[in-house]
């Protein structure tokens, strides 16, 4: 089961029902050799079920899973070249750390010296040589997690499966351990599937992320694309912080929310298109919002006031009320002080209709472009207000 000579993972049209509930609805996904792929999604989206089918703990109703060009769909877990790290680590409390790690090697009837060498090497890799003779109950959460990782890695699997392995750790330790996992994964070049519901975790360690919802993959792309260009309304709302409001396109910007508040947007193409007069779901990142003191410009229609400020140390999150029923969140520098009236503008925005991304603006060039099948028709600037916009 060497990590060499593998072609990566290929999942094709995987489906699974549990009782009357269709949990996974035709998932297809590929992971290149040495790639770390995250399955990201809310509880019940089917990510763990998918992982368990890859590991052989569940049989798919239809579809196929192949690894290194070999179809493993029907193989039982013990015959798959995969190794899994479970959410609760699943260490065996009656065995020492050494025996936990060596168990799989003993099953393969390897010579004792080779078992010792491999266990020592992997324990060294995860910095647990000192805990070799301890039982899992005498280890901290982080150490238990590393034992579980060592137990998986010692088998040199073609595919490493991680089922929310950091969810039981505290925030600081979680960051440390995920960096260790990433470093080891890259060093060994093991194809890895990592299940998590934590977007920060997924964005920070993945080569590619599959965002799942309702048993389907909403988007499968690299972290940057996923963050900057979410292809569906669901992904836009799930990954990162995003202002999403109902709005209409008008000359020089957009009107948002039930108040029809005008927010300027420096996007020439958007202004030229003008819009079709219909309503869009307008999404923009908090870091794409400019908030400045209004000073004496009291006549501006997009004046607002800062309702709340939350300091995150190196940056500040502010909630700006731009209308009676419309608020916008923004990230600002830590030293920005906005006590009086403010004006708000948006540098970059995304437009969604029927849940799909239709338009993406590019502030650097002042141009945007329609995406997918739907384009913005030309027309005059619109100023009518939307009935249902609100801060999501």
């Amino acid at each position, binding site marked *: 089961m060497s990590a060499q000579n593998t072609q990566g993972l290929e999942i094709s049209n995987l489906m699974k029902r549990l009782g009357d509930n269709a949990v996974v609805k035709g998932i297809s996904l590929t992971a290149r050799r040495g790639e770390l792929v995250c399955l990201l999604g809310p509880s019940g989206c089917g990510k763990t079920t998918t992982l368990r089918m890859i*590991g*052989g*703990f569940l049989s798919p109703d239809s579809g196929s899973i192949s690894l290194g060009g070999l179809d493993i769909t029907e193989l*039982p*877990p*013990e015959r798959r070249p*995969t*190794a*899994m790290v*479970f*959410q*609760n680590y*699943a*260490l*065996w*409390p*009656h065995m020492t750390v050494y025996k936990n790690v060596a*168990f*799989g090697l003993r*099953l*393969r009837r390897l010579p004792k010296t080779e078992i010792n060498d491999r266990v020592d090497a992997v324990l060294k890799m995860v910095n647990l040589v000192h805990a070799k003779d301890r*039982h899992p*109950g*005498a280890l901290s959460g982080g150490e238990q997690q590393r034992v579980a990782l060592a*137990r*998986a890695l010692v*088998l040199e699997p073609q595919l490493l499966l991680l089922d929310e392995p950091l969810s039981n750790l505290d925030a600081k330790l979680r960051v440390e351990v995920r960096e260790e996992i990433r470093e080891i994964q890259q060093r060994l070049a093991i194809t890895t599937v990592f299940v998590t519901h934590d977007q920060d975790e997924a964005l920070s360690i993945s080569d590619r992320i599959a965002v799942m919802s309702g048993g389907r993959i909403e988007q499968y792309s690299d972290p940057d694309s996923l963050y900057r260009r979410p292809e569906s309304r669901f992904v836009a709302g799930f990954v990162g912080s995003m202002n999403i409001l109902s709005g209409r396109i008008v000359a020089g910007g957009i009107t948002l929310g039930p108040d029809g508040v005008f927010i300027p947007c420096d996007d020439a193409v958007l202004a030229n298109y003008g819009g079709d007069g219909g309503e869009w779901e307008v999404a923009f990142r908090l870091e794409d919002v400019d908030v400045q003191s209004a000073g004496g410009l009291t006549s501006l229609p997009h004046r607002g006031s800062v309702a709340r400020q939350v300091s995150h140390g190196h940056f500040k999150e502010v909630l700006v009320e731009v209308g009676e029923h419309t608020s916008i969140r923004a990230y600002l520098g830590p030293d920005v002080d906005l006590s009086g009236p403010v004006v708000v503008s948006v540098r970059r925005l995304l437009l969604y209709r029927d849940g799909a991304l239709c338009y993406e603006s590019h502030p650097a060039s002042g141009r945007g472009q329609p995406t997918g099948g739907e384009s913005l028709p030309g027309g005059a600037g619109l100023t009518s207000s939307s009935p249902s916009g609100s801060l999501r």
Partner: protein
Amino acid sequence: MRFLRRLGQLLMVAPPILVIGVFVGFPIAISAIYTLGHLGGPNSAVSAIGLHQVSTKGLFTLKVYKDVFAERNFQASLVASVWVTVVSVAVVLVLSWAIALYAWRTRSRLGRALTALAVVPMFIPVVIASYSILQFFSYGGFVKTVASALGMPHFPTLGYSLQLVVIAEIWVSVPFGVLMISSGLGGIPPSAFEAARDVGASVVRATWKILVPMNLLPTVIVTCFTGISVLGSFTVPYLVGPTTPTLLGPEATETFQSFAEPQQAEVMAVALFGLSIIVAVPYIWATYRANRTSRAQAL
């Protein structure tokens, strides 16, 4: 202050200890002395009705033990007791594990139904169950009737045999076994089993190497408690078993009541007690080990 607190704690536990000491410990002690040849004092009443008693003017004598252990009937009953106990415990363990494991692994309706069904004998009085089992397997019973109807009039029956005692003991003990093993398995996360499969263990290997050690204490409890229960059982072997050899419980009762030999009967009780202690050793070891592990983990 500390002394008073400790004294208060001791006073709190004193009543049950006194009750056990007076009503259990003292009778055991005088019975043990009686078997060693001391017929007077608290044993004078029972010795007044006993036949073939041995007395000593010295510290103690083991003559009664020698006589009883030399008797063929007793030897046969001792062997029968051990045999019935070993076989019953083994079958109870296998059945309990099989039912509990099936329910734990499949988590299916059938598994839950089997577990619920296995507990039913607990609610049926042993006397009624024993007579039912006897009627089912004995000479005029269901098995014999069906066999005769199928043209096998000489089909063997199990009525009043040690095999039937084993069957009845299994009936009595399986509910406790299933409850304990199921409860123990319920505390093991399925991922512990899956992790073993994941690193290459077959179902049998994963069960043997992971589930059994992780569920060791309930298994030992079932083994020991079932063993002690079968060894000391009276109703089942008395109603469905043979007259001789029988289990030590009925054997001692018969020696006491029919032969009026209380000293010999009490020697049999001491032998039974000795066997029970041997059976209890694994339980004491497993409990000590579990406590030591939990203490080590707490540190």
